[in-house]
């Protein structure tokens, strides 16, 4: 029998269409959950559906969505950033001290804070890529360091008196949409573009899918991973800045648990802690879901302690489902 004589076509298929369907199914899941929660909370408290509350949700979702964007890139590389909440606190303090105590113009304070966030990210990235510390531990360490740093800046007291030029970052709206939501939206659009269309995004997913394959293809995996954490640190700083402008104050307790919201958002949106997958649109929908959960439980008069419990359960549940998905493939 000659080698050429056989031809086989009965292979498992996964065309672009079925793949798109898979992604849509994931988004549909997030969307359905959003609608279900909305109905439940609307029934529990009529005020939930008021335009004022939705404006409020649009503000709240901004910070979580900004963090979820950074977290999407990190998780796509099979990493994780649990320092986000603390870095929000640290950079919130830095931005307020710069703008208030040092009297810097808002734009300078903002750039300085973004730089500080990028530096924090660089330290995490280098810890991971050159010292070989796993991302979970490296960012856990930074969680403690950044929180300590945030408390040290003012010995734990909040900073008030931010200038109007700083507050406008979050307060006020454009086309009926809060400024901070616009910031998150623009960031998400840029991130989606980078993840889907550029080499940087492609390498992010490739490293998360199979780092050895990326290495053999000549990608500088270490440099790329370091850069990912630099970007994550900078997005945490952006969230810190927006937080300060939103609350008109900087407190070392800002951003507590926010990493849990962002991790849940990414995983609900289709990201996998095993790496190689994730979409910005999914993560933003996940962020919206987590925001509605938070806002709705508050309006329903559910104790914030209970909300904490729910948050923990949602995070673990989402990751469990991610595990199932992976095993069933």
């Amino acid at each position, binding site marked *: 029998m000659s080698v050429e004589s056989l031809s*086989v076509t009965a292979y498992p298929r996964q*065309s672009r269409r079925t793949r798109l369907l898979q992604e849509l199914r994931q988004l549909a899941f997030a969307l359905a959950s959003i609608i279900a929660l909305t109905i439940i909370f609307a029934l529990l408290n009529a005020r939930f559906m008021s335009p004022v509350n939705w404006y409020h949700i649009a503000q709240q979702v901004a910070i979580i969505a900004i963090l979820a964007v950074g977290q999407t890139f990190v998780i796509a590389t099979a990493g994780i950033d649990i320092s986000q909440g603390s870095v929000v606190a640290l950079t919130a303090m830095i931005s307020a001290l710069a703008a208030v105590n040092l009297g810097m113009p808002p734009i300078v304070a903002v750039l300085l804070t973004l730089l500080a966030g990028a530096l924090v990210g660089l330290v995490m990235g280098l810890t991971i890529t050159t010292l070989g510390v796993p991302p979970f531990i490296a960012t856990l360490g930074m969680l403690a360091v950044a929180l300590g740093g945030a408390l040290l800046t003012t010995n734990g007291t909040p900073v008030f008196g931010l200038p109007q030029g700083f507050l406008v970052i979050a307060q006020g709206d454009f086309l009926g949409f809060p400024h901070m939501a616009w910031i998150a939206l623009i960031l998400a659009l840029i991130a989606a573009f980078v993840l889907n269309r550029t080499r940087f995004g492609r390498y992010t997913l490739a490293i*998360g*899918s199979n780092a050895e394959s990326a290495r053999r293809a000549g990608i500088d995996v270490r440099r790329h991973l370091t850069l990912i954490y630099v970007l994550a640190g900078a997005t945490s700083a952006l969230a810190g800045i927006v937080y300060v402008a939103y609350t008109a104050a900087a407190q070392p307790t800002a951003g507590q648990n926010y990493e849990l919201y962002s991790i849940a958002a990414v995983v609900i949106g289709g990201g996998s802690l095993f790496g190689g997958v994730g979409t910005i649109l999914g993560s933003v929908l996940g962020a919206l879901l987590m925001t509605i959960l938070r806002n709705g439980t508050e309006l329903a008069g559910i104790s914030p302690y209970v909300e904490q419990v729910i948050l923990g359960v949602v995070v673990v549940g989402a990751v469990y489902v991610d595990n199932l998905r992976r095993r069933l493939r």
Partner: protein
Amino acid sequence: MDALLEVRNVSKRFGAVEALKDVSVSLAPGEVLGVVGDNGAGKSTLMKVISGAHPPDSGELRLAGQPASFASPRAARQAGIEMIYQDLALADHLDVGANIFLGREPLRRLAGVVPVIDDATVRAEVVALLGRIESHIPDPETRVLALSGGQRQAVAIARALYWKAKVVIMDEPTAALAAIESRNVLRMARSLARDGVGILFIDHNLLEVLEVCDRVAVMYRGSKVYECRASETSQDELVRYMTGFSVQGAAVPA
């Protein structure tokens, strides 16, 4: 025909183990050379020397008549020697095109400034490539994780082909495949050879070797003990050399 690759008197030892003893082989363009031998005979070590993963202790490599020495697999790949790894090392979550072009994506400039991956070019090239190796991957936008073992081989082979490999090393490419898929891999090896690529083909299945290879080299305990045209040998003869029965004056059964 001039040799594409020449291995001259290469030796390599690992501590007390002489993995390669004065081995010489040559490979012509468009030729499939089978390398057979028992476990531990030195086949993989020979391939690793050729692909730049191990430096030889002595002896030399020549590529298109010129002496060549590779400091790393990367250097060997740049010179046109592509090893198709047994584990294949593909990024499962990326699609076929993304894997073939990984690390070397063609770019175009959006609005004349922003560099983005040129998906149209990738797609067109991949369709052409898969046609050339007659693979049965239905769609270049299929994720590798949905592919069968044979289709994954096709992706690795297409990658080697696109990047103008002159020598492709396949170390037991059919070891983990279903019978029908093995046939496809053999077919792809032949179509690569038709394109002028020289192929080093390691396989335990002698029937496959006899079918796909032009020549066969037999290794035994680090030495090349026999070489012949595939059309002029048989499984029995190869086995005799592989087991050392025909070596060093041992009696050859009638």
